């Protein structure tokens, strides 16, 4: 575990960034999660919400109840090793179809990397990923752990919107798209699982710190699971 005091950086007078480092690193992300959990276990009046990212925790607060200096002082006094609160990290099995008409960019990625499309899919489905953060849009999860053979830089110009559930890669990272959005990433598969469903409780399926593995499925299975998901049935499941 990386050590050293975090940097406290103001983001205006209503938010504070507690920065543990500047890189993508599981040990840094562990410290982000530890502080997030410590704040959940020992709530500080005036904190509105926290946003964990790869390497820092953003704390949004009500300036009527807290000043930046008072918040920093309170964080310094927190017990850094609280009893674990909330659900433990889970390992999700998420079905993905790597066949056409899904996986619109699989051929392009395979050609650029000098691999067969089957090899790209096998490498992607053969890895275990860590959920580092959400971002970009509701339910978009950023995953670390992409095999280095699948490193491809982002598109110079965004591509047209991907379908909800598109599984994307770029810049050595993986991402699951929850809603249709244009993106600079590459679409190499699609999951029928809804990572975000505002009608469901909880609305967001996975939590930061969870693990994810992709299970390849064929087109017929995709269609059946998509129907199940539309009926509100769980399609992705935590590993026993």
């Amino acid at each position, binding site marked *: 575990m990386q050590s050293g005091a975090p940097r406290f*950086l*103001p*983001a205006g007078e209503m938010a504070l960034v507690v920065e543990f480092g500047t890189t993508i690193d599981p040990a840094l992300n562990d410290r982000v999660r530890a502080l997030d959990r410590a704040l959940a276990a020992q709530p500080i009046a005036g904190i509105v919400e926290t946003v964990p990212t790869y390497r820092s*925790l953003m704390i949004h607060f009500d300036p009527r109840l807290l000043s*930046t200096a008072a918040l920093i002082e309170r964080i310094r006094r927190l017990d850094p090793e609280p009893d674990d609160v909330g659900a433990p990290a889970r390992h999700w099995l998420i079905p993905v179809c790597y066949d056409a008409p899904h996986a619109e960019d699989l051929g392009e990625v395979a050609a650029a990397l000098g691999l067969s499309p089957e090899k790209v899919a096998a490498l992607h489905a053969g890895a275990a990923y860590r959920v580092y953060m959400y*971002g*970009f*849009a509701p339910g978009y999860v950023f995953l670390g752990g992409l095999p280095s053979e699948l490193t491809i830089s982002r598109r110079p110009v965004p591509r047209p919107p991907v379908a909800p559930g598109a599984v994307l890669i770029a810049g050595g990272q993986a991402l699951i798209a*929850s809603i249709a959005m244009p993106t600079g990433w590459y679409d190499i598969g699609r999951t029928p699982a809804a990572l975000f469903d*505002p009608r469901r409780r909880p609305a967001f399926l996975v939590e930061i710190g969870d693990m994810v593995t992709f299970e390849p499925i064929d087109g017929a299975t995709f269609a059946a699971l998509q129907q199940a998901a539309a009926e509100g049935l769980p399609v992705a499941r935590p590993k026993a």
Partner: protein
Amino acid sequence: MPGILRVLRAGPGATVQDGGRYHHRRHGVTPAGPMDWAAFRTANLALGNDPDRPAAVEIGLSGVEFLYEAAAPVGVALCGGGFSWLRDGSEVGPAARLVLRPGERLAARPTAGAFAYLAVAGGLDTPVELGSRATHTRSRMGGIEGRMLREGDVLPLLAEEARLGEARIAAPWLTRNAAPLRVVLGPQDDYFGDDALSAFFSEEFRLTTASDRMAYRLEGPEIAHKESFNIVSDGIAMGAIQIAGDKKPLVLMADHPPTGGYPKLGHVARADIGRLAQLRRGETCRFVRVSVEEARAALLALEGEIAATARYLHAPLRQSSTQDLPRHNRIDGVVDERSS
């Protein structure tokens, strides 16, 4: 049964907003909410509403016209920018509390500023998503089908009450003011050299046409990074001044994503966000550096002034009520309850 506001006319830019969709930023959810929180809050408080929770209409540069359909009158408050408002064709000024009667029409014309608010007593009764009625068009959440308002839309009201009379609303934060916008440095001010920081705080910037509820893009001197302009994504708060590879400031506004990957030189103080939001494309602004303590003090002072004005507007009788209301009030049909 409470009435409705029927949209007779709406160009692009009119949305339903409440104080914002908070507590879900960790899951990638944009808060949205008003561009000019001070004007939004003033409109709600003028009606005796909670300052932030009730949903109101935010109106952009295309204006809007409503028809009130109901069995009984309702209190409404309008303010923000320097829009002119008309009730059944008669001017009611830029900021007022009105008692709207069934069958009356209310129209907003954007004569100055960029955003105005129409609040109703009790608030609008559009669907709540993830705890908020705020519209975020990019993720199609909130408001009416997650989109801007258009002709034919119906906005149901939660209440049918008009317990406060008509009054003109006057407040310094609702008028234009060219003072520099206050900025708190960080979190990535160390990505910029002294030359870049000094250019940022001494030169003038102009709002470009590539500006919307998500971000205001500014044109001015180049703000160069010392080295790289890529950072590993971290959190974003409203007002963040992000500088990407084009070396131009992009100020993240109400519809900002909750995380992002460009260095942020600083944040526009919350007390000045409304003034920035009210800029039109082509208008200019300057920035001045303040400490985080100064920004907080400015915010608390402004919040106190807004609350005090609301108390004043609620006072049933006040000795010197003629002092600043009817004297400036050259408006037909707007009568201060305290002078009647």
